[in-house]
């Protein structure tokens, strides 16, 4: 594993990774797809978000990774009110969040290697110092032989693993994954969950949305959502 040391000492991260209170959300002028959500994810927590299709899992995650804004309620990330973020501070919060999306969001003209290395490249890390990290993480997800491949030539499962590698390479404080095992066989699914657990072991808060209940280890925290309302 390329991940060997906690990114930051726990004492510095006393604030919960995610805190929501009374959060509602709608798309445009549409109906509310989330209603009165209260939720706290402490730093270092590992949780699963489950619920039937259309329940609002993806929407809730979008609020957390700052893709959408709540229509009501308060969301704070790492102790910062998300409504108060500025053009300068918002990218810095985003850098602390690794995201694996359902539709992968890879850049088609960049190789697998470049896609995975992207967060470090954006953060201004020297190419020579991130190259080995990118190669190593790609080997872990079983894509060590496909570094030069372009995303359109990959299978769904391979794209998903590229997206996961990209989400974890910068060692985020919060890792959000939306159905991350939807396109892989059970063995690879289990392997990916192990990767997330490994991330969690070094202090990363992990939230995984899934409708695959078999994936959830016994004893893990489970948040259930139905018709936009959360019950934990």
């Amino acid at each position: 594993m390329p991940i060997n040391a906690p990114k930051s000492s726990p004492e510095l991260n006393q604030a919960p990774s995610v805190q929501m209170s009374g959060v509602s959300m709608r798309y445009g002028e549409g109906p509310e797809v989330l209603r009165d959500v209260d939720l706290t994810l402490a730093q270092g927590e590992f949780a699963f978000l489950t619920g039937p299709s259309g329940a609002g899992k993806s929407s809730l995650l979008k609020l957390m990774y700052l893709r959408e804004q709540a229509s009501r309620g308060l969301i704070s990330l790492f102790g910062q009110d998300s409504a108060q973020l500025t053009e300068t501070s918002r990218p810095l919060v985003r850098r602390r969040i690794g995201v694996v999306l359902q539709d992968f969001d890879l850049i088609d003209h960049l190789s697998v290697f470049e896609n995975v290395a992207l967060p470090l490249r954006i953060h201004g890390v020297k190419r020579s110092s991130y190259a080995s990290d990118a190669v190593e993480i790609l080997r872990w997800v079983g894509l060590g032989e496909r570094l030069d491949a372009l995303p359109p030539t990959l299978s769904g499962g391979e794209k998903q693993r590229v997206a996961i590698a990209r989400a974890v390479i910068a060692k985020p404080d919060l890792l959000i994954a939306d159905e991350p095992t939807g396109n892989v066989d059970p063995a690879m699914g289990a392997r990916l969950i192990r990767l997330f657990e490994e991330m969690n072991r070094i202090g990363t808060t992990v939230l995984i949305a899934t409708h695959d209940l078999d994936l959830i280890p016994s004893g893990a925290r489970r948040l259930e959502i139905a018709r936009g309302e959360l019950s934990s």
Partner: protein
Amino acid sequence: MSTSDFNLPKQQPLFPPHARADRPLFLVMMIMVFLACIAAMGAQRSYQAAGDWGRGLSQSATVQLKSEDVANALPILNAQNGISQTRVISESESKELLRPWLGGAALPDDLPVPALIDLRLTDEESFNARKAQSALKAAGIEANVDDHQRWSRDVARTARAVQLLGMMALALLITATIATAIFATQAGLVARKSIIDVLTQIGARDRYIARLFTQRFGWLGLLSGVAGAILAGILFLILSLISGQDSEGLLPRLSMGQFDLWILFLTPILSAIICAISAGRTVRRTLSTREGKRHI
């Protein structure tokens, strides 16, 4: 784990190198730069030509008088200030000058053709046409001294108008270029929306994304500018070859001067700067309004 078996490939640009969305900008910028070069070089030529004519006219004056007065008039004229040379234009020469207006028909011999004296001036300041005319009148000679002032004023006015026209054309072209660059940037933003969304999600600053556009469009502006300038240069070389064969006309000969080379050199740079700045500003403005709504 060793990575020595992996050759680090060359870093790929974040935007695809050949973007279909940028092609119209390349074409339009090339045409703009071409037109700007032509306008600047053409305006400069007309201005210079007008200056040449004006100078030619203002260094000479013409005296019109009856033939029998010529002999008496010459010493009086020579006594005037600012005249370097007087030359009597012979009757046949005068008739030759009239021919274009009167056609080939033979002029009747008794037609009173006025005699003409051509004056070369040392400088237009010290020669005073009105004073010369009254000196002749004092000697009983009815004459008309014309220092072409009305003409040279007209020529100067025309020259200024041409210059103004050229500058207006340049200003319009620059405005159109900025507008084009802004349009193209907006199209470029839409075309690259998915890439920008990814960059935004992983924490790229607006400044970083804007810089990608600044570089891409600045480069595009430079390349299209160079293409347009080369086209303009080729056109001027061809025109100068054609016009060089008939150098006796009123029109100035076209040939590449230092001014033209500067125009051809600087216009692509200007085009690059306009594209780069317009793109960067457009992206910053667009991105800054996007948060809180959807991406872009």
